[in-house]
């Protein structure tokens, strides 16, 4: 059994994860406006993908397993998208007795 190759892959993955952590921490300190949350979530998604592909062996798993791994994120995407459709298009009329935001 070739012990060396997977260990190398794990080590490189770990190093990449720590680098991405440093990157996301660093970027968060820069004033990038709307790009800040985008960047931090994209980096988080890349980190999660690295964990899934290498540590959780999805890279060499059968297609069925990859499909199973993707179903729940897809279902959540539906939850966020359709609820979001409500939130994005709903007008909010605060009642007179509700204090304005910030209090």
């Amino acid at each position, binding site marked *: *059994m070739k*012990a060396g190759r*997977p*260990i190398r892959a*794990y*080590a490189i*993955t*770990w190093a990449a*994860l*720590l680098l991405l*952590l440093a990157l*996301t*921490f660093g970027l*968060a*300190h*820069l*004033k*990038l406006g709307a790009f*800040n*949350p985008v960047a*931090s*979530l994209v*980096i*988080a998604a890349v*980190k*999660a993908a690295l*964990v*899934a592909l*290498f*540590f*959780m062996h999805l890279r060499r*798993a*059968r297609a*069925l*397993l990859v499909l*199973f*791994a993707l*179903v*729940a*994120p897809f*279902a*959540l995407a539906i*939850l*966020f998208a359709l*609820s*979001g459709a409500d*939130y994005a298009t709903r007008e*909010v009329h605060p009642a007179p007795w509700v*204090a304005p*935001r*910030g*209090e």
Partner: protein
Amino acid sequence: MSASSREIDAGGRGEPDRHARGDVDPRAWREETASLGMWVFLATELMFFGGLFLAYLYLRTHDPEGVAAASTHTHEWLGTINTAILLTSSFAMALAVHAAKDARRKAAQRLLVVTAAFGLAFLVVKGIEYGMEWRDGLVPGLRFTLAENTRTATLFFFLYFVATGIHAVHLAIGVATVLWIAWRLRAAALPGWRVDEIDVLGLYWHFVDAVWIFLYPLFYLVNLNA
């Protein structure tokens, strides 16, 4: 069953069944089945956390400034250190699973203990954070003393405690299970089903790590550039 009603179909449709020809390795079958079962379970866990993410999405889009202001009270250095700790624990766990599959029992045992140690370190740091947040009066419903931006900050910290709390419970269960399996590994034999157990435990551990990977930017990195 009369001959007229039993029909042989041409076959070739659907997945050919390797079981019938006896060319399925029982070890591989059990490993893949356990893996499939764990992935289904992890899907349920992701859906469980999903509701919290929707609540967070609601709060962040409805009062982005409020969430930004509230998040300045989280401890980003501790959060970042904890993220590094958990990522490293995943590395150790991946090595442990690899050692188990390689039949290197003692190495697997040691790596599992290392994994659990990192997990415990995470929980200790989290406990320290919670202690500081209690002291600072940031626990909604129990001890919340922020005077400004109270409404959004209350909801932000509510989501923070629920999300990180449930995550911590999952991690604690993971740590306990890892230590228990490491303990069981002291016996000389390393049967195939034990290796499968370690493999699926690894999947669970990495999932708990992946959830934290998302919680970290949502609660710690919102407003560090003010």
